[in-house]
């Protein structure tokens, strides 16, 4: 009796139309003593979307993640999650959030099912409804056959899937993930991104993840690029890449400075100097490559030619290398 009631309430809750199904961040800032970790950030994310916060280490991603996941208070600016103010309605918001941390959040000495069961209890799930939910999620994430094994014997990729299953246990409307693909191999990473994409589409969940991996960001519907606490760009990956325009040519050379000067003199481009290479954006890049190699056959060690990536977007916008 109680079980069916619980199940019923979960089902209706997730079907209820919610007027404002977004995360709306406005003028959010956060400082640690001297250092400004987040500087006047504003963005919106809607349901059914995978939003990636891309930035190098120390760009403020983790601070933003900790604020959104209710671990750190909002000190300046406002954050509204599904219409609820993060500063005052923490309890309501916590029910809406599923959170996956960068560091493993599973008890490795317990089995997969035990981890999920305890987590379910925290959200007031119990009995048949909880068991049903657990087996369904494990099935969906392809870990049913490992359900009674201890978490410590599972591979990194499987553990991460269990973590996501755990975060989805109480049918949250928002899934927050901090560097979800770190420590995973290429295959596991791709699978994870596919899973997240499916979740956003079929369950209409809002997925927000932080990442420093360009591949992950490419898999998102929209990306926000963070650098030194500032949101320097926001948009669909293709849209952002279109900003760079044309092609990107990377040239490695022993004497970059002189080469840079000569190139700008002769071709009229202004190359960006980075640690070990020259970076040039131009239309009809293949012609430029042909000409530049012909002109400086001795100075150039290698040339890379390609369409712009999100890394190029980052370099263009910040003038820094993405490291």
């Amino acid at each position, binding site marked *: 009796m109680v079980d069916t009631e619980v199940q019923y309430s979960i089902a209706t809750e997730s079907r209820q139309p919610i007027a404002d199904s977004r995360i709306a961040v406005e003028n959010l800032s956060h400082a640690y003593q001297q250092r400004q970790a987040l500087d006047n950030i504003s963005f919106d994310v809607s349901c059914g979307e995978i939003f990636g916060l891309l930035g190098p280490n120390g760009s403020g991603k983790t601070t933003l993640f900790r604020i959104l996941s209710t671990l*750190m208070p909002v000190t300046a600016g406002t954050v509204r999650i599904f219409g609820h103010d993060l500063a005052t309605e923490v309890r309501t918001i*916590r029910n809406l959030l599923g959170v996956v941390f960068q560091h*493993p959040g*599973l*008890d490795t000495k317990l089995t997969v099912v035990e981890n999920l069961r305890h*987590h379910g209890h*925290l959200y007031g799930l119990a009995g048949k409804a909880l068991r049903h939910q657990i087996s369904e999620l494990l099935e969906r994430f392809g870990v049913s056959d490992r359900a009674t094994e201890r978490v410590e014997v599972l591979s990194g990729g499987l553990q991460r899937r269990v973590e996501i299953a755990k*975060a989805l246990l109480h049918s949250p409307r928002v899934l927050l993930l901090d560097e979800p693909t770190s420590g995973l191999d290429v295959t596991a990473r791709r699978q994870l991104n596919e899973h997240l994409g499916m979740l956003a589409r079929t369950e209409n969940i809002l997925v927000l993840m932080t990442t420093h991996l360009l591949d992950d960001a490419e898999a998102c519907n929209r990306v926000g690029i963070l650098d030194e606490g500032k949101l320097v760009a926001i948009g669909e990956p293709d849209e952002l890449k279109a900003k760079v325009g044309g092609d990107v040519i990377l040239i490695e050379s022993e004497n970059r400075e002189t080469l840079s000067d000569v190139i700008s003199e002769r071709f009229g481009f202004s190359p960006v100097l980075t640690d070990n290479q020259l970076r040039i954006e131009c239309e009809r890049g293949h012609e430029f490559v042909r000409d530049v190699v012909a002109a400086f056959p001795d100075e150039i060690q290698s040339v890379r030619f390609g369409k712009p990536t999100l890394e190029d977007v980052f370099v263009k916008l910040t003038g820094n290398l993405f490291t």
Partner: protein
Amino acid sequence: MVFWILIGSGLSASFRPTGAADGPDYIAYFYPGIVVLVLLFTSIFATISVVNDRREGFLQGILVAPVPRWRVVMAQAFGGTTLALLQGVLLLLLAPMTGIRFGATSILLSIGVMALLAFGLTNLGLLIAWRMDSTQGFHAIMNLLLIPIWLLSGAFFPSTGVPGWLAWTMKFNPLTYGLAAFRHSLYFDTTAKAFGEIPPWTLSMLITGLFCVLTYVGATFTASTQAN
């Protein structure tokens, strides 16, 4: 355990608690102290995990769940208390060796007092652990604060005959009363009592209870301020 037998036997030749000159030897005097030490260690060690678990581990998930902090701390405190109590009860089996004769009252009372002590000590550990961002820091506090609290509780030596400043320190040490409560409960059904001058039963129980409440409130407060 080993601690108790080695130190207890070693010192029993030269040491007799004042006021019980003809009574039981140091081993008997030291026994409740050892039980309290075991309670202290077990409850405190149970709380060290909070330091790491808060950054990586199951606790992260608990912190973002819609569960109030006071319930989280309560659960942690009960966890530590259970562990410590199990250890304490095991040690209690050795009590008859020291001349303690148990009746139903003294057994129940002793277990009850042990539970109170374990609860208070676990909360004390939580109070510290929730503030710490490294386990090294925790160990420093442990050596600086927790071991002296135990040493000066009358576990190791009675307050009679020690220098004035030390006697005063012992008087303001909450664990002195916890230990006294435990001694009283152990010997509840025994006529020959193996302790010197210690605080009376009601006062001891009162302060121990107060200690539990204060450390719990303190731990909850710390947990709430540290992580939103």
